[in-house]
């Protein structure tokens, strides 16, 4: 019993250290965002700034037009992308899960092959910009992430095939239900666990996506919060330039603190909702990992 207690102490000690390592950067970020600019210039970013100040947030508030615009874009693409992605993934996965689908082998292969081989960034970019003319449109932020290359379809298909008894579908069929009705009334309600999982993954993907914005969007009006953050990481002045309100605030820009405040604004929603969906997220990861 004694050694057992010792073991527990050691294990807890290791995890407290690991947890600290994971949290410390966030703490540094948050504390820095509440520092006065002069204390950052003199002492650097620190865990306990010599002088607390809200000037960074006051500054961001003055730029609220650009900020709220970006939040709006992010929320819009996340909501639309998640629902559209779920819908067409499920629509595509369901027929593939049915054994009586004509040409099932070929169609499955077509979906599966996208996991193995892709044209690469350059052709994809050219197709989206030159053929579909999506540069600087909201579509460019939504469409590339919809099915994430067939991976989600495979997960949903496997779930449909394993967890929905064929007999249910057959009996509904005999009762005269149409294919769409079966899908909508029976298959979808029975598949809530997998749909929730995929929905959560899509939400995270859309919320965190900065890459599509980086390559397809040049207009500040269409920047998502991640893209705004991305530009500001390199160029703090960017927020001012992108502000359509036209306020002139170039005097005494608290650059260092503003940067960190901006990052705080970027992660705040996630940190706030994380405790609530953490449980589902872990479940989702486990389903996603095991084929």
């Amino acid at each position: 019993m004694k050694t057992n207690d010792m073991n527990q102490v050691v294990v807890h000690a290791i995890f407290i250290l690991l947890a600290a390592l994971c949290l410390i950067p966030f703490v540094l970020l948050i504390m820095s965002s509440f520092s006065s600019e002069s204390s950052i210039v003199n002492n650097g970013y620190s865990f306990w700034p010599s002088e607390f100040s809200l000037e960074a947030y006051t500054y961001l508030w003055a730029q609220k037009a650009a900020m709220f615009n970006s939040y709006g874009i992010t929320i819009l693409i996340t909501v639309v992308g998640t629902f559209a992605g779920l819908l067409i993934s499920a629509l595509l996965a369901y027929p593939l899960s049915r054994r009586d689908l004509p040409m099932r082998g070929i169609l499955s292969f077509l979906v599966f092959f996208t996991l193995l081989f892709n044209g690469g960034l350059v052709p994809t970019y050219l197709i989206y910009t030159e053929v579909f003319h999506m540069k600087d449109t909201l579509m460019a932020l939504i469409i590339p992430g919809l099915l994430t290359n067939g991976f989600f379809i495979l997960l949903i298909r496997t779930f449909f095939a394993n967890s929905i008894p064929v007999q249910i579908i057959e009996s509904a069929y005999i009762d005269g239900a149409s294919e769409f009705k079966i899908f909508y009334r029976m298959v979808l309600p029975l598949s809530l666990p997998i749909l929730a999982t995929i929905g959560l993954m899509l939400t995270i993907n859309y919320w965190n996506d900065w890459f599509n914005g980086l390559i397809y969007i040049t207009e500040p009006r269409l920047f998502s919060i991640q893209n705004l953050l991305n530009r500001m990481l390199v160029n703090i002045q960017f927020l001012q330039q992108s502000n359509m309100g036209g306020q002139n605030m170039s005097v005494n820009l608290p650059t260092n603190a503003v940067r960190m405040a901006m990052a705080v604004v970027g992660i705040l929603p996630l940190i706030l909702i994380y405790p609530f969906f953490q449980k589902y997220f872990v479940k989702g990861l486990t389903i996603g990992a095991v084929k």
Partner: protein
Amino acid sequence: MMIPGLAYLIMNNYLPMFGVIIAFKDINYAKGILGSDWIGFKNFEYLFKTQDAVVITRNTILYNGSFIILNTVFAISVAILLNEVRNKFAARFYQSVILLPFLISMVIVGYLVLSMLSAESGFLNLNLLPMFGMKPISWYFEPRYWPYILTIVQLWKATGYLCVIFLAAIIGIDNEYYEAATIDGASKWHQIRSITIPLIAPTITIMTLLAIGRIFYSDFGLFYQVPLNSGPLQPVTDVIDTYVYRGLMTLGDIGMSSAAGLYQSLVGFILVLLSNYIVSRGNKENALF
């Protein structure tokens, strides 16, 4: 029912596959993609004649290779330890915290790293190094530190995710094995070595092979956001993905960039097939197809 999905796949995946012909063309926007002149393997010749191909291939493989090894070892260790935590509430708390880095975007990670490493105001330069009497370092101009920095950042971000997966496998192990082992007087270490590890071996294998199959693809965000795209660091931070991106977006060298992209896709494709073949030889159940 399948029409929207299939249409999407054609648009997002199959059209670009035909687009690989760009790699064999001398792209001229005036003539359009199809109208541009064929130049055969010239783009590939240019690519492989320069030092670039060697550097980006080396970086890609070395980084991803060490990520695979470190991630696996680290995540399994953490998962085993987490399984030992008796207090359920504490276990859930640790797991949540370790998973947190996985959820934030690479842009934010870039900010976090900047707050640590920034030359004029970073925590390391102004607070930590002086404590040990060391001089500040211009991190973003010193290539030699970056292999370590990127590895640490990557490990920090990825451990939580992998740990959850391995933990799920460990929880699935029948408790009777451990009870029997305890009766036989096996120590914790013995139990881990002869029960836990062998029983989660299928999960380890499949995760590793999946990673090896994707060894030619890097996390673009890690290599682009975290070093802030800093020029002096390129020899040690440039991977195929960043090279392709730069060729396309900044240099406008579409031919070379798509040649590099096709090289990546092809080698990646072969590696996936190869690793799947190896798994299916070992155990049909574990194979992807």
